């Protein structure tokens, strides 16, 4: 159980601590004071403007809630919708959860550290809200749970903290998006996420980012996977952002635990993405895979990956592939660290252009050069994700397709 005062004290000390990587942000330029929004029931949720609906949809959130087992929507600092349709699946705003339920205290700031940097510190000191999603033992979701964190207020610093728990033998699929008002100029999103995947449990977490041109984004995520557990993490960002930096960490702490991290990033001009994944393989039979596909259309993309094999009989693979289409930078930083005999670790990194040979091949089947190029680019982004339910695969495809039009 966490202690409120010592947490505050710890965080306060790190209030000005710069992050290890990524451009430094002056948080004093943003406001953190609460922005109230009315709660929207099902009926009113359907009546939001088409523009807002589209923003939600591009972040994977369907306000009709069809084929969704639960929903959490937060606008600025307020929860505007939160419910669940399935027995054994809990979706609770974290502030409510911290007040009402003792068990939440055992997870809050358990994996992430409040004093990691000024962003974690700020989220600890000035929490707006966030969600707790939990699958009780043995409960499996048929359809995903959707969550969206939306920013509409100019100049806001949104501080959220999410906790996701899959109890033993459970299965949880989450599709979550971050989005902003199309008119938003300046803002920063700080998001702490802690994932607990217990024995024989499975979480698939698909995150779609849909930011605005001048947004600063600093997510801080840590996951822990127990025996035979599976953590499947998909990240998609095809929209401009001023600066996004995240380096989520996963700890495989039980035998045969598996983590698979996939990310698809399309970098727009004037945007900077510093994105990666780090997995610690601590027990025999652990497997990890990090796959990144990046395209630069003039943006700067740093694609990191770090695999740490601490014991024998682990298997890990890292794959960073980048295409530079319209200038910009792709900097692939793959790191492998083997600490014992018998680790099996590999990486594959490539930064390049579309092969002329492939374009000509498609042209000889009748496509013009432009069609051939976009077909190849779409194929490049079409990563097969083993274990992802078809329904979510369709969501990923839809997100890519929706952004496709803007990108290519």
């Amino acid at each position, binding site marked *: 159980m966490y202690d409120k005062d010592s947490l505050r004290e710890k965080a306060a000390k790190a209030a000005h601590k710069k992050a290890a990587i990524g451009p430094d942000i002056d948080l004093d330029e943003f406001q953190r004071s609460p922005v109230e929004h009315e709660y929207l029931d099902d009926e009113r949720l359907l009546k939001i403007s088409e523009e807002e609906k589209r923003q939600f949809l591009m972040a994977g959130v369907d306000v009709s809630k069809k084929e969704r087992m639960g929903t959490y929507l937060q606008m600025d600092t307020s929860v505007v919708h939160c419910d669940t349709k399935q027995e054994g699946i809990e979706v609770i705003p974290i502030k409510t959860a911290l007040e009402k339920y003792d068990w939440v205290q055992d997870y809050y700031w358990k994996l992430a550290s409040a004093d990691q940097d000024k962003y974690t510190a700020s989220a600890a000191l000035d929490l707006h809200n966030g969600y707790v999603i939990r699958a009780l033992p043995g409960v499996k979701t048929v359809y995903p749970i959707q969550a969206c964190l939306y920013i509409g207020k100019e100049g806001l610093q949104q501080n959220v903290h999410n906790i996701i728990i899959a109890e033993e033998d459970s299965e949880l699929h989450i599709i979550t998006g971050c989005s902003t008002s199309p008119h938003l100029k300046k803002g920063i999103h700080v998001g702490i996420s802690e994932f607990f995947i217990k024995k024989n449990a499975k979480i698939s977490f698909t995150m779609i980012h849909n930011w605005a041109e001048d947004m600063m984004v600093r997510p801080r995520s840590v996951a822990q996977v127990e025996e035979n557990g599976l953590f499947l993490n998909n990240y998609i960002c095809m929209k401009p952002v001023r600066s996004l930096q995240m380096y989520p960490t996963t700890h495989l702490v039980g035998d045969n635990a598996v983590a698979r991290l996939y990310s698809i990033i399309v970098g727009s001009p004037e945007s900077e993405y510093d994105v990666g994944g780090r997995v610690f393989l601590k027990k025999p039979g652990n497997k990890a895979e990090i796959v990144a596909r990046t395209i630069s259309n003039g943006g700067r993309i740093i694609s990191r990956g770090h695999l740490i094999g601490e014991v024998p009989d682990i298997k890990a693979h890292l794959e960073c592939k980048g295409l530079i289409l319209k200038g910009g930078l792709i900097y692939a930083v793959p790191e492998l660290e083997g600490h014992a005999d018998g680790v099996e670790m590999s990486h594959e990194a490539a930064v390049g252009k579309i*092969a002329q*040979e*492939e374009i*000509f*091949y*498609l*042209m*000889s*089947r*009748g*496509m*013009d*050069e432009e069609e*051939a190029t976009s*077909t*190849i680019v*779409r*194929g*490049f*982004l*079409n*990563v097969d994700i083993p274990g992802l339910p078809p329904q979510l695969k369709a969501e990923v495809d839809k997100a890519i397709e929706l952004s496709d039009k803007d990108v290519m």
Partner: protein
Amino acid sequence: MLLIEDLQVELAGNIILKHIDLEIKPGETHVLFGPNGSGKTSLLMTIMGYPQYRITNGRIVFKGVDITEKPINERARLGVGMSYQRPPTINGLKTRQMVQFCSSREIDVDELARRVNFNNLLDRDVNSGFSGGEIKRSELLQLMAQDADLLLFDEPESGVDMENISLVGNTIATLLQKDCEAIQNKSRLQQKRERTKMGLIITHTGYILDYIPVDKGQVLYEGVLSCSTNPREILQCISDFGYEECVRCTIKTH
């Protein structure tokens, strides 16, 4: 009809094809022999329109249209199709989608795939990890969907096992309208006269000749088309005396 006149082609500054004259009439299939590096594939790539093969002289006319300067896709639309020997892998593009793209109309991809025993590979990425035989069948499947009028085959039998060679051979025969079936109201000769498809096949072994009646054989040697006669005779001559001798003897007799 395909008509090539006095064609000269350069690749990376080197002349690789010289004074090529070639005429393939509707319904005809020609086979192209020649040692490695003699320019056979280059000739096919030039007809298909690969821009790195720079045409410095002569012209290519297909169906009455001068295609010498036309880009690859326009040639494909006019009806030129190619079965590649080593096509590139297209990651993330399923063979099923590719086959659909090849056709300008709605087609039943599964039904087409059944004909070349390809159904269980349709959902694999195009050419990704395909064996030699699988690549050939994938290429044939795409050509079937494309329904081209001039079909260029680059060594269609290489890397294909004995069991699949008849499948490949018979499929090519069908594509080239060479498999005359007994039809009640038309004689086989009539059918033969009505053929429109044209073929140009590169082969080293000649195995493919067992399945496809070929009208003419051509030998390409050091960038020059040196012989044009009965394909079986050429094959016999090459296997008995080698290319050099074969080319010498035919030049003398002409």
